[in-house]
């Protein structure tokens, strides 16, 4: 053991133990530390959630800022979400048309496009794209405020930094994602319809017949439930990662990357879980 090793005060130095005990300690101590770190992560997030719920009381602080965040998160993301949805819808419809073989009626194109876009592609891809566009921005903003000690300054001025920075973003993400998803669904379905009607022999009446085939409103609710969950996870994860940023510009970069990765994975997990629990209710 090097000279730089100082045992914690009140703890018996490891070197004082017999060899067989030292081997066991060197085996179990990392496990204990990892476990503790894992639960510390969860606990830290729970504290963050508690802070958010407490900050929800300070309506005067966050409501004006929420409108701004809604614009930044929601309205400003519409072009990106729209472009993604339009291309996804067009390609889905077009590809489906080319998979048909003689004997299948063309309305299946509309049906497959609608099911794919409403149930999966529009919510998931909008969320993934927004995890990059909105989530990274959120983490970088809050993280920079953290490393430049602006958050500490807010606390000093008796502002609740969570109510000031986090709650507007969470509310905006929670409300804007479903609306963006609705727009994405509409744009995707319309773009798919225009593509197949213009470029292939599928007629508009085939497409709309397929769109209505086996449709139940719960399919839209399902998409909105997913979008709400995705928006919530994006804004919570990204603002948390920004909020705990440490050590300068490098820390901001690391937090941003982590935030995007974690929120993307969580979005995919939530997607799978919602499919697992809610998909059986989708059958008409």
């Amino acid at each position, binding site marked *: 053991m090097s000279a730089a090793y100082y045992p914690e005060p009140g703890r018996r130095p490891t070197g004082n133990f017999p060899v067989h005990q030292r081997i066991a300690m060197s085996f179990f101590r990392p496990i204990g530390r990892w476990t503790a770190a894992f639960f510390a992560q969860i606990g830290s997030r729970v504290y963050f959630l508690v802070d958010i719920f407490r900050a929800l009381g300070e309506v005067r602080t966050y409501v*004006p800022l929420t*409108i*701004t965040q*809604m*614009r930044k998160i*929601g*309205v400003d993301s*519409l072009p990106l979400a729209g472009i993604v949805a339009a291309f996804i819808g067009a390609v889905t419809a077009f590809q489906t048309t080319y998979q048909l073989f003689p*004997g*299948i*009626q063309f309305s*299946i194109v509309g049906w497959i496009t*609608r099911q794919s876009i409403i149930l999966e592609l529009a919510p998931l891809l909008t969320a993934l794209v927004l995890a990059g566009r909105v989530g990274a921005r959120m983490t970088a903003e809050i993280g920079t405020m953290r490393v430049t000690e602006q958050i500490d300054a807010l606390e000093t001025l008796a502002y609740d930094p969570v109510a000031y920075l986090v709650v507007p973003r969470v509310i905006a993400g929670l*409300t804007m994602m479903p*609306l*963006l998803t*609705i*727009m994405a*669904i*509409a744009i995707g379905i319309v773009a798919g319809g225009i593509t197949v009607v213009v470029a292939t022999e599928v007629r508009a009446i085939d497409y709309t*017949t397929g*769109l*209505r*085939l*086996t*449709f*139940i*409103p719960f399919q*839209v609710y399902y998409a*909105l439930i997913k979008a709400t969950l995705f928006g919530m996870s994006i804004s919570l994860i990204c603002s948390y990662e920004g909020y705990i940023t440490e050590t300068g510009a490098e820390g901001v970069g690391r937090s941003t990357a982590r935030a995007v990765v974690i929120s993307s994975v969580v979005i995919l997990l939530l997607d799978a879980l919602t499919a697992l629990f809610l998909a059986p209710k989708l059958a*008409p």
Partner: protein
Amino acid sequence: MKRRDEVIVGVFVTIALLVGVFGTLWLARRGLSKSYPMYARFDWGNNLKVGQQVLLAGVQIGFVDKVELNPSGYLDVTLSIDKDRKIPERATAVVQNEGFFGDKSVALHPCGDAPPPAAQVTPEMGAARAGGGEAHCHPSAFLSPGDTIPTGKAAPSIDMILGRVDSMSGALEDVVQTVRISMVENGGIDDLRKTIASTNELAQELTRVAAEQSKGLSLTLASLRRTANALDSASLDSTVQNMQVATENLAALTSSLQSTSARLDNVMAKVETGDGTMGRLLNDPGVYNELRKSLARLDSLLADVKANPKRYINVKVF
């Protein structure tokens, strides 16, 4: 800036909500057009789904709104019909196939399965029938909203056809099995193969023989050609002349033979008719009888001579 944000966010939220609400309604309810419910009852297993088309005489007039499983063996189906469409009184509902792959629609036949009764044939309808021939019936009464449309006779479904194909494939399998047993397990294929092999050998043999034969034939032909060349045309000519002479002699002989045979014919005819000595001899039974009697007498005379030779022969030497 803040005011502007509020306006933009408000506009976006409003548009998105409107798109969501009206889009869902458009998908679920054929737009906001009014409709009324009708009911039908089908057997289980018709593969009906919400949103499938309802066709009246082939024209879409609504869609399947609800499919409920009735435990007593039926599907209670709610049909949503466009408000401006009416269903004729004698219409029947049938689940029919759309395409090959199990998609269905509910088809309403305006006149049911039976032809329209004669009492309902009106003059103008008769005219229409005479003109176009397609006007089947002229519904005078319509079902009112909420009625149950009676179920008609269904066309054979893909399932039934597939079942038939299935049994056919079973029979085919039997045939294949039999062929397999006789051909593979009982050595039919081996026999066939042997036969083919020996046929092949035979053909080769034949080819070989034919080749030899043709070689010999060509040799023969060559020698024949040589002989023909060696033959003198003059001697050939004289031979031909001799043959002509011989032929003429033969012809003369034949004619004299003919005359001889004609004469012989004449003689034979005379003999047959019984003229002359020969004819009498041959044709008169009296001669035969006389001859017979004479023979009998000669016989008895000879027997007598044998028995008493001394009576007739008296040899005296001294």
